[in-house]
């Protein structure tokens, strides 16, 4: 048998393999989808549940002071926070399911609720 040439069967297998590969990327790499709700946690406990499509501003109390949170048009972010590094503020706008912004010093965190929570638990 001549093994050197690529046979028709090989071509079929490769085609199926390519299809499988593409579909695997599509299925496992798609973003969680736009979130509709966010949850604010203070000290690990749920403090508020926010509708992302109701524009609002909140002051969330923490040990260091108040973290200011803003909801606008399906997105939410930390506007300012009494922490030295401002990492929470620099995270910017969250809108996809599973996204989080955390202010560790003030023990406040924001998470967009999606179908598949990206983190099982957040502990400070």
């Amino acid at each position, binding site marked *: *048998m001549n*093994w*050197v*040439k*690529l*046979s*028709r*069967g*090989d*071509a*079929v*297998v*490769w085609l199926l*393999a390519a299809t*499988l*590969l593409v579909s*695997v*990327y599509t299925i*496992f*790499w798609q973003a969680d989808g736009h979130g509709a709700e966010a949850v604010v946690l203070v000290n690990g406990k749920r403090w508020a549940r926010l509708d992302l499509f109701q524009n609002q501003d909140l002051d969330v109390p923490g040990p260091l002071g108040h973290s200011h949170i803003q909801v606008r048009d399906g997105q939410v972010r930390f506007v300012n926070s009494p922490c030295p590094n401002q990492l929470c503020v620099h995270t910017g706008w969250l809108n996809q399911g599973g996204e989080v912004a955390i202010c560790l010093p003030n023990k406040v965190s924001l998470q967009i609720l999606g179908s*598949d929570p*990206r983190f*099982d638990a957040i502990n400070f």
Partner: protein
Amino acid sequence: MARTLQTTRDDYLIAGFAALAITIHIAESALPSPLPGIKPGLANVVTLVVLCRYGWRMAAWVSLLRVLVGSILIGTFLSPTFFLSAAGALASVAVLGLLFALSRALPGWAVGPMGYGVAAALAHMSGQFWVAYAVFVPHSGLLTLYPLLMTLAAVLGIVSGLLTRTILARLNSPPPGDNPV
């Protein structure tokens, strides 16, 4: 009254090829790998060569013996590594069996080493991955790794297919000299 075990020629061939595959497997296990458990899978070349020259049944024996004996010799028998390895081998043997049967049923569409190599590699990786996900790391974060692992498997499958093809080509033309193939 003593009863002797009748050994056939096939038994010797299986033993010989399995020994070859096991040796390659152990030598390869000494190489460092960037990700845990990801190996080039060079021992699979033996499985593929046996598949193409002797059929699926012998290839299945060689593959499963390689996983079993290899794990005993390396010392990972019944460890998580062993179960992942076994899952991969079983999946790959099953897929090869399917393709082999289809190749026999439709000779015009017979699959060759290149096709077998890629199919076996993807099946092997999938078998390992899903057992790892189901039993060891049931976290959704692992799923993001699947496409990357499959891409790697496809590439390594092509490599093993190429190696198999080269070996088969050399085996079909006996080398000059007194060494019969």
